[in-house]
């Protein structure tokens, strides 16, 4: 049993190292694209099969986004980002729960003893992905805030003159806000990584300790955690977006 915080390298294309997490991310996106394109190509007025499921997800998400942003136009604008985050994170979390995750892989000699490099590793259990996604989310949040309020009004959220009403206190609060914008990056990426990675480790450890039945409740727990983390990432992005686009209340 080998536990590695970093995603393991399977092979290289040129100088680019293809890790198991990256491979899974790639496969998840390709299958997501295929299913979505396939379904949206043959939409029928009376929904059937997969269309039902996608419609349920889409309508629920659109309703939720609408309830937060309170603007139909903006809901439609940000719907793709929020939905893609949710779907992609959800699927990559759940892929890590498939049988074979962490156990089936390339035999690998490391420091004199044999280990396995698993083929399946949840994309979310790789910091490269969670940081990349957080960067995108935070960038979109900042950019939307600036676009909605203008650079001066947006900047006034963080740089408050100490000679106005709360005198100095506002200035400190503004600076704290600025720090928290950067903290978002860390909290976003490490929350998702930590939860999913810990879940995978937990399952592997449980499997090694008691192979039958005992890991089942943990498996259910991890299914739930995978959903919750996807929802949290998407919802937080949405809420931060709304906050960024709202004028400061001072």
């Amino acid at each position, binding site marked *: 049993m080998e536990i*590695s*915080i*970093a*995603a393991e390298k399977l092979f290289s294309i040129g*100088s*680019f*190292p293809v*890790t198991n997490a*990256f491979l899974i*991310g*790639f496969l998840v*996106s390709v299958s*997501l*694209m295929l299913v*979505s*394109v396939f*379904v*949206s190509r043959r*939409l029928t*007025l009376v929904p059937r099969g997969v269309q039902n499921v*996608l*419609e349920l997800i*889409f*309508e629920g998400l*659109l309703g939720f986004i609408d309830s937060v942003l309170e603007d139909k136009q903006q809901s*439609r604008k940000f*719907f*793709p*980002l929020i*939905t*893609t985050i949710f779907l*992609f994170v959800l699927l990559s979390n759940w892929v890590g729960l498939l049988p074979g995750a962490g156990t089936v892989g390339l035999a690998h000699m490391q420091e004199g003893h044999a280990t396995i490099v698993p083929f399946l590793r949840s*994309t979310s259990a*790789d*910091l*490269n*992905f969670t*940081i*990349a*996604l957080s*960067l*995108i989310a935070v960038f979109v949040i900042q950019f939307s805030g600036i676009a909605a309020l203008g650079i001066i009004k947006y900047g006034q959220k963080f740089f408050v003159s100490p000679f106005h009403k709360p005198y100095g206190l506002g200035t400190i609060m503004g600076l704290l806000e600025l720090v928290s914008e950067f903290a978002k990056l860390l909290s976003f990426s490490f929350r998702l990584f930590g939860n999913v990675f810990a879940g995978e480790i937990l399952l592997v450890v449980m499997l090694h300790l008691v192979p039958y039945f005992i890991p089942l409740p943990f498996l259910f727990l991890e299914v739930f955690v995978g959903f919750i983390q996807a929802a949290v990432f998407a919802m937080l992005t949405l809420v931060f977006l709304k906050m960024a686009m709202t004028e400061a209340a001072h």
Partner: protein
Amino acid sequence: MEALANLGIDWKLLTAQAVNFLILLFVLRRFAYRPMLDFLEQRSDRIEQGLKDAEAAQVKLAQMEEREKATLAAARSEARSIVEAAEASAKKRDAERLIETEAATKRFTEEARVKIEEEKQKALTEAKQEIAQVVTASVEKILKETVDAAKDQDIIKKSLH
């Protein structure tokens, strides 16, 4: 940098993941979200339209029923008045005809009576004349043998007075 490497952070992989996600985002937005949302909107519009149409149809149906009822009522009352009028006119005509018939009968009877009376008078006069003649002739016959001229004259005179 050492710490980042220990966490497995590799800028090449990080960029690749970001690009991967962005490609997914744009492909889904172009080929899935937009058609799907448009479709959902279309359908909800259509359902709304359908509901509105159904409501309008119901209102129209109620109006039609109302109108039908009104028309029926009007037709019924008209029919009744026509029948009443027909009955009244029939009764009137019956009465007229009765009066006419009565008058005609009376006239005929009257005429008949007058004619009978005339006939009777005529027959009476004729009978009188004939009887007188017969009597005269028979008297003449009887008297011619027993009565002379003087007596004859006397009788003529008497009968003339």
